[in-house]
């Protein structure tokens, strides 16, 4: 038996979470360093996965398969394709930065209570989420995926509800109420989505007699498994609903601004850059593979919803007064692009969407984490409370600008490549949708630049005048991410090379070919 690399990659943060939680109350710093080291070791493992993965090889690699719950037909089956490898790498890459950025976010306000250990809990929960996200990217058994897809809600729920910004413009009491509201809203939305999916998971088993993704996909391709059209559509809807809540897609998006607004910046990054990717990833892996016909059937509606997400999210972002909520609505707009790319059913669209997931993760992390540093300095999330920051903290302002420009997909920065691919991929098949979606870019320029202008330029506000620039720890968080944004913007080939073969296979699952370019016949 070969070394179970995928299991270890997912298990390491889980073990690390338990170890971190077990650190005694007084040893907060030990817990922090332990969590950071575990996340770095996980990154090393993820890099190993990346290196061992052969883009030209089998569809699922590094597979593991063990019997688990035979009665339910559930197997412990892991395997990664190019898309999963890219997202595992993204996850493992972002977590150390998230931990580092949240270094002081969970320090207890008062010392004295010896049994309440928020710091240990904070970092343990982050590692627990990482473990569950990684294993959901790896699972090729529908049931196994479902279990972790649902279970990751619990640590996230505690992260949102238990830890908020140190200072709040409306005082601690309102903050606590809003926080627990946000946490409950997050959980109820996602749990409802998950339970609907549970019904579909059971239905799939009744129809297919198996939970194995590869087995079902094979049986479907060879025609052994014949699904009635209506059954397939119902099951597709059950799955898609859960993923659309998670992703989130209009009109199921309303939990995201609350969750991102009330949680600390690192947790907000964890939600939008890491966890939400499971939703879009699962659309590619499960919806398209298991229910190709139903996916094609649903395409028009999904595309319309995606475009609505793009425009509506961007419009709401323009109108926000709260920095974190602005970034949340911008993310909703970006998830619209990702979903549009997936359901455009062209190879540019889908590889663009996958690339988009990676790039959006990095660019949002930059923007949100710097916003977090900014907010913790001023003690307010309101845009109106800032002004002229670039004069007092030029490095902070400069990196924030790069993050913002990445969000509006400036050429030369990573998101440009993916957004371009998605738009091209959509345009070749659905020109009208593509054209409307382009409006989203214009609006993105509006909300990011207005945000920058109002907070960073203009006369220096008195409350801002003493604001320190980025500290060493914060620079360590920001600099590598910014470098990566620029590198992938100029040279995206490493990611596309890994992703493209997997995208081709997904395309063949849905029996779609790229539309041939129409060339006017030469006279």
């Amino acid at each position, binding site marked *: 038996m070969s070394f179970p690399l995928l299991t270890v990659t997912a298990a390491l943060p889980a073990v690390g979470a338990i170890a971190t939680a077990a650190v005694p109350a007084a040893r907060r710093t030990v817990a922090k360093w332990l969590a950071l080291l575990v996340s770095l070791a996980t990154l090393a493992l993820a890099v190993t996965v990346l290196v061992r993965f052969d883009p030209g090889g089998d569809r699922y690699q590094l597979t593991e398969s063990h019997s*688990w*719950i*035979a*009665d*339910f037909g559930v197997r412990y089956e892991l395997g990664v394709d190019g898309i999963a490898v890219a997202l595992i790498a993204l996850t493992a890459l972002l977590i150390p930065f998230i931990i580092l950025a949240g270094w002081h976010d969970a320090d207890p306000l008062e010392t004295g*209570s010896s*049994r*309440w*250990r928020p710091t240990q809990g904070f970092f343990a929960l982050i590692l627990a989420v990482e473990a569950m996200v990684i294993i959901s990217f790896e699972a090729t058994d529908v049931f196994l995926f*479902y*279990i*972790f897809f*649902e*279970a990751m*809600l*619990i640590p996230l*729920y*505690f992260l949102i*509800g*238990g830890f908020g910004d140190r200072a709040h413009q409306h005082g601690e009491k309102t903050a*606590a109420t809003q*926080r*627990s509201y946000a*946490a*409950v809203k997050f*959980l*109820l939305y996602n*749990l*409802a989505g998950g*339970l*609907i999916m*549970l*019904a579909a998971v*059971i*239905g799939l*088993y*009744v129809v297919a007699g198996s939970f194995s993704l590869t087995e079902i996909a094979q049986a479907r391709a060879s025609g052994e498994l014949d699904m009635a059209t209506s059954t397939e559509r119902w099951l597709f809807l059950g799955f898609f609903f859960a993923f659309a809540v998670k992703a989130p897609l209009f009109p199921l998006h309303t939990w995201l601004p609350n969750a991102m607004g009330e949680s600390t910046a690192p947790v907000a990054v964890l939600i939008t850059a890491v966890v939400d990717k499971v939703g879009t990833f699962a659309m590619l892996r499960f919806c398209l593979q298991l229910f190709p016909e139903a996916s094609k059937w649903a395409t028009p509606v999904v595309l319309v919803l995606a475009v609505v997400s793009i425009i509506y999210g961007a419009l709401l972002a323009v109108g926000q007064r709260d920095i974190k909520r602005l970034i949340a609505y911008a993310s909703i707009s970006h998830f619209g692009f990702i979903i549009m790319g997936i359901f455009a059913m062209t190879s540019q669209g889908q590889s663009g969407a996958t690339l988009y997931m990676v790039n959006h993760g990095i660019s949002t992390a930059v923007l949100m984490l710097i916003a977090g540093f900014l907010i913790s300095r001023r003690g307010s999330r309101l845009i109106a409370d800032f002004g002229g920051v670039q004069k007092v903290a030029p490095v902070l302002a400069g990196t924030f600008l790069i993050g913002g420009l990445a969000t509006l997909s400036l050429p030369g920065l990573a998101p440009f490549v993916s957004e371009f691919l998605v738009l091209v991929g959509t345009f070749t098949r659905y020109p009208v949708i593509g054209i409307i979606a382009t409006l989203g870019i214009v609006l993105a320029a509006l909300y990011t630049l207005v945000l920058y202008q109002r907070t960073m330029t203009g006369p220096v506000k008195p409350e801002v005048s003493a604001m320190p620039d980025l500290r060493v720890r914060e620079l360590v968080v920001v600099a590598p991410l910014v470098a990566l944004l620029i590198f992938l913007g100029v040279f995206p080939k490493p990611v596309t090379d890994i992703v493209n073969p997997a995208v081709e296979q997904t395309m063949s699952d849905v029996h779609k070919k790229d539309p041939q370019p129409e060339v006017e016949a030469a006279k």
Partner: protein
Amino acid sequence: MSATAVHSLWTTAAATAADPIGKIDAPKIEYGQLAPTLIIIGAAVLGILAEAFVPRRSRYYAQMFLSVVALIAAFAAVVALAAGGHGTTKAGIAAMGAIAVDGPALFLQGTILLVALVGLFTFAERRLDPEAHGNRVDSFAAQAAAVPGSESEQRAVKAGFTTTEVFPLLLFAVAGMLVFPAANDLLTLFVALEVLSLPLYLLCALARRKRLMSQEAAVKYFLLGAFASAFTLFGIALLYGYAGSMSYGTIAQVVDGTVPEVTPALAGTMGNDALLLVGSALLVMGLLFKVGAVPFHMWTPDVYQGAPTPVTGFMAAATKVAAFGALLRILYVVLPGLRWDWRPVMWGVAIVTMLAGAIVAITQTDIKRLLAYSSIAHAGFILAGVIATTPEGISSVLFYLAAYSFVTIGAFAVVTLVRDAGGEATHLSKWAGLGRRSPLVAAVFAVFLLAFAGIPLTSGFSGKFAVFKAAAEGGAAPLVVIGVISSAIAAFFYIRVIVLMFFSEPRPEGPTVAVPSPLTMTAIGVGVAVTVVLGVAPQYFLDLAGQAGVFVR
């Protein structure tokens, strides 16, 4: 497909078919196969003698010892019977056709005995209430006969009296529960019903604190329970009139029309469909009362709230196991030929039970009432598995019952720990901020709540998945959809409690968490362990339940 062929899906021919009542023979009793029940009844009788003859100061230890030994011995007997193949190949009917010894019976008896053992630990807890007159006291009334608020009660409390009668009462209830799902004729069923119910009525009235509420709960339980018993008895009488027999097997044969011989005296009414329909409806009604299904659930919240919490935990867990066992046997062994009649009705009951339990629970402000409504919703989920009418349906219900009962008993054990000056602090507002004060207790309770909510990696999820899968395979897909919808509704109030415990500020005069003796710790520990093990690695237990999926007839 003929009716008999369908039956063979979930019933096998009995190894020793019982003779129809004709000539009077010397009874032939298989003592070995009845050992679990006999041990418990014997110990209960001994317990009563101990009450009379053992000196007061050593009664507690004598009763504890006797009960623990009896429960473990009975469990060992169940395991021995199962290992000897009585659950599978040698399944048969014992005691002149009165008791079935088969897979479901043994599985449920094993579950009940383990639950009772854990419940016993919470009964025996004596560290939570403050000591009175140098005596450690438990959750039960100092002197049950003393009028609440009277002088004699005050004296009894001051003197630190304790009521060790609860141990034999518990054992008697357990004995009834062991027979209830194994009963193979209607009279045995009824006797078992009474044997399990009467001690429970008494136990409900024995709370040390809030005695009036406890007595009110007992009276409500008794009156409604007596009603339900009367319905059951009436149903039994009508079924006897219909089939001319009390035996499950014979009634089923009459329903199928494959009865070997007709008793001349009953030829007039035999096979009268009105008797059959009304009789079975009344009988099933009585059982639905015991499981707490809507619309026969009215007693549940009051009784769960008023009864001493250890009793509530035991009752919620073990009674449900026994009653669902009996319900399964009635529906699958006696009335399979009637399933086109009862399935639609049970569909309705399951749907209403799931939805009503989940929706009404949202408005509850008392943790015990909340758990009561949650138990109603869970009864609905289990009914979805019952409706499947497949062997997978049976084994999924068995598994769910085992998983659910340990979560329940653990959750109520935690409730006993959260106390203020007035005893247990069951009002939800008092639980605010518990997670800050006692992170461990709150975390354990959160695990139980997540299991109730059916979050993956807990036993609640495995169980829910098992019954929903069985229901979907049995052609009840709409029930599954309603099931997941009500799970989502139910999740809301479980989450609300977690929010309250972890995200709310603790109240200055809030309750404290008592440090229990190892007894309650064991009970809670077992609950958590079973919850996690059945959630992460349920395969072995699913196998057990799967092997136990065939009734003998």
